[in-house]
């Protein structure tokens, strides 16, 4: 299985990700506004929020793909502005829309990514890749060009690519979207396993069940600002009542406009 050998288990509560007043402005639009949060070692942190609230932008800043307009973040103590290379070395990323070269086969792509991550070539690496591909049910498509892959298959191969270098921090942008139930269950087990080995995971999702089951802590953002943060229990406490995550989420970010809906339906019928 996955040989994540890196972190001594007892050293808990190490800060793996520390976002400090992150802000990103596109042209004139403020996409992320003074966002701060922390992800500890061995923790799965869920970033929730409506479409366009700034989840992907935040993740891209952590990965050094976008430069924050203001603020910064640290990944295991490495500043993402001044020590981005060291920071990136620790992270694995599955983007919202996988970035894949269409003219390579899945196997070639996996090896290509291993090469650019400088994983030594050889049977050990290939055994590991083989295991991952088999685990995610895409082994038998590994000799096909990626242009023939379905959406879920592309996501899976891109997860393989993210896990190849055994990152200590995984950043998963809506990984579960479009994955079949078996794949989703497999992924859940893998993520749980990685967490128990001490990896930290920052994930975004719109599937609140997944967030509820998987995440140790949750941050809800709206218009680029954090509107609530904490474990499920803490969130419930804040919301003053036995509410589901969905109710909490909708309370904070605004639920459906029942009156407008009724008007519309009335018009239709």
């Amino acid at each position: 299985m996955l040989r994540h050998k890196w972190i001594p288990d007892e050293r808990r509560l190490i800060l793996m990700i520390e976002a400090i007043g992150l802000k990103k402005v596109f042209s004139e639009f403020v996409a992320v506004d003074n966002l701060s949060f922390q992800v500890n070692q061995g923790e799965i942190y869920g970033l929730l929020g409506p479409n366009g609230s700034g989840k992907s932008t935040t993740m891209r800043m952590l990965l050094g793909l976008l430069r924050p307009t203001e603020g910064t973040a640290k990944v295991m103590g490495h500043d993402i502005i001044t020590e981005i290379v060291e920071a990136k070395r620790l992270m694995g990323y599955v983007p919202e829309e996988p970035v894949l070269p269409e003219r390579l086969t899945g196997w070639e792509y996996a090896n290509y990514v291993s090469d650019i991550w400088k994983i030594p070539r050889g049977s050990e690496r290939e055994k590991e890749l083989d295991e991952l591909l088999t685990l995610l049910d895409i082994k038998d498509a590994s000799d096909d060009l990626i242009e023939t892959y379905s959406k879920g298959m592309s996501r899976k191969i891109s997860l393989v690519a993210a896990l190849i270098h055994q990152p200590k921090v995984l950043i998963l942008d809506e990984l579960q979207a479009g994955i079949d139930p078996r794949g989703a269950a497999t992924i859940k087990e893998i993520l749980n396993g990685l967490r128990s080995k001490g990896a930290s995971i920052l994930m975004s999702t719109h599937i609140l069940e997944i967030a509820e089951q998987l995440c140790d802590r949750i941050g809800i953002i709206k218009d680029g600002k954090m509107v609530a943060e904490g474990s499920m229990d803490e969130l419930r406490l804040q919301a003053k009542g036995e509410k589901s995550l969905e109710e909490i989420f909708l309370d904070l970010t605004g639920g459906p406009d029942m009156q407008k809906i009724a008007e519309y339906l009335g018009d239709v019928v």
Partner: protein
Amino acid sequence: MTLSDLWVLLKQDLTQSYRVSGAKGKRTKQKSVFRRLLLPIAAVVIGVVIVWVIVAVVPLVGWDTLGTILSDNIGAGSSLFNVLLLFSFIGSIMVSATTVGNSSKMEYLMTMPISLRTLFLEKTIIVILYSSVFFLVIGTPIFIGLSITSTAPLAFLSVPLFVAMMLVISTLGVSIGGLMGLLFSRILAGRRRLKQVGWFLGSTLAVFGSIIYYYFFFASNGLGDLFPILIQIASALGLTSGISPGAATSTLSLGFLVGAPVTISEVVLALIYGVVAISLVNLNAYVSETAHYSGWLTSGSKRTSKTKTPVLHETWNPRPIPGFTFNTATSVSIWYNLTNIRREGRVLAQYLVGPLRFVAIIFLGLFAGGDIVAGYTSFIVIAVIVPFVISYAVSFAGYELVYEGRNLMNLQLAPLSMYDYVMGKIYSSAPFALVASTIVSIIVAIIAPSLWIYIPVVIVSAVCINQAAGGIAANAAAIGGDFRAERLVTRQRGAQVQMPIRGWSMLRAQLLPNLIGFTGLSIIMGLGVFFGPLFAYVVLVPFGLICLSLSRHYARSAGRKLTQKEASDYL
């Protein structure tokens, strides 16, 4: 199919590519009004200038003289219009196939309550407009100007007639070309490898076609010799000048201009072509629809069998350039570059054979000069190697770097030296430079056996020039590359052209390498010829070293710039 559907589609397509009012949102980078309107403004300015010049100049010559010249040349006009027909035909061979092949990009349109036939018809019309717009922008003001100065009573009619017939010609060319492409795709359906070979040969043929065109352009008595041959070809195809579409256009438009009598049969001929054009463009849409539904153009995948044959992989250890070992980043970069190019026959052909076009211009242009250069043939042949290897460098290290596009994200995340990766791109064109310069050297040795001693010099300096050019091109790409540009092959025809490397940077990628290449090679060969071969070999050493260190220098700078690119530039 209704005309209103068609109109809606056309409108959205045109506003999309020529949005005059910019998007005002805060997220959107604002472009100045001038830049958005540049093309239409340019077209209008050109038009006005042409009209003005004609109106000013014609009276000096006298309309009578000009009118006589025009009347005498209605035949030549036919040939000219037939050539335009040929152009729009050649340029459109793959158009319909590409549109159908890219149909997944118009999924949002395909789900609308419109028949696919209408949709494909609309795309073809767009292509027709694009392929005739240049001639319309130039030709319409010419006809306007001439009809202002003309003394013929109905001269103004020549303007709408020209526009209409130009569209007919373009429709004929595009539809026939489109149908041919669809026919090819039918033949090649589902055979990936064969398809790639087909693409490669097709693109190569196209390049040779244009070389022949240049040949006539330069080597003989200018265009004069081109027309008789094209007319011969045309008549061999049954398009005898008198009843060809070009003739119909010419007799009608020029006829009204000079006031020549227009016969009923000429009008009928023009109408027939109009009807044929409309039928063909509809047929093209119909065949496109059939092609879409029967999946001739879906990428030939072998993922059909559900049988469980265990997938076994050979040990991963690609050696992209036999005989050399590189560090992993460089070697994987070479492998990635070559694999990507190799798997797309059209790209391979464009990259490898394409430069012949530019060479042909220089080469034939010089030959057309006549006796003066005759004695230097071998040197000209040697000189030709410079643009050739530079062109390889620009494609392999420049364009391909830009086409990394979104893959740049993977590279930025990995702990990899971008310099090594860029070097891989640069190295990957070296084998091709080696082969091309070897071929050229052999040709030279055959033409001028006394020069055989320089063969190694030429080959080595060609490869060094190629490497320097690669570094410079990579740097230019990192500065001015449009990392969101899509590879031209998959680009929807009629979509706005995205040059992978923008204006100034492209110049940067070409100018310095050519300067270095031509100067260096001239000095080396010059010293050799005047003082003896030994001198050439001696100078080769510093020259080679300079080239290689330039290559490194620029690659390093490219690497630095790529590392700093923001995701919003390529995602």
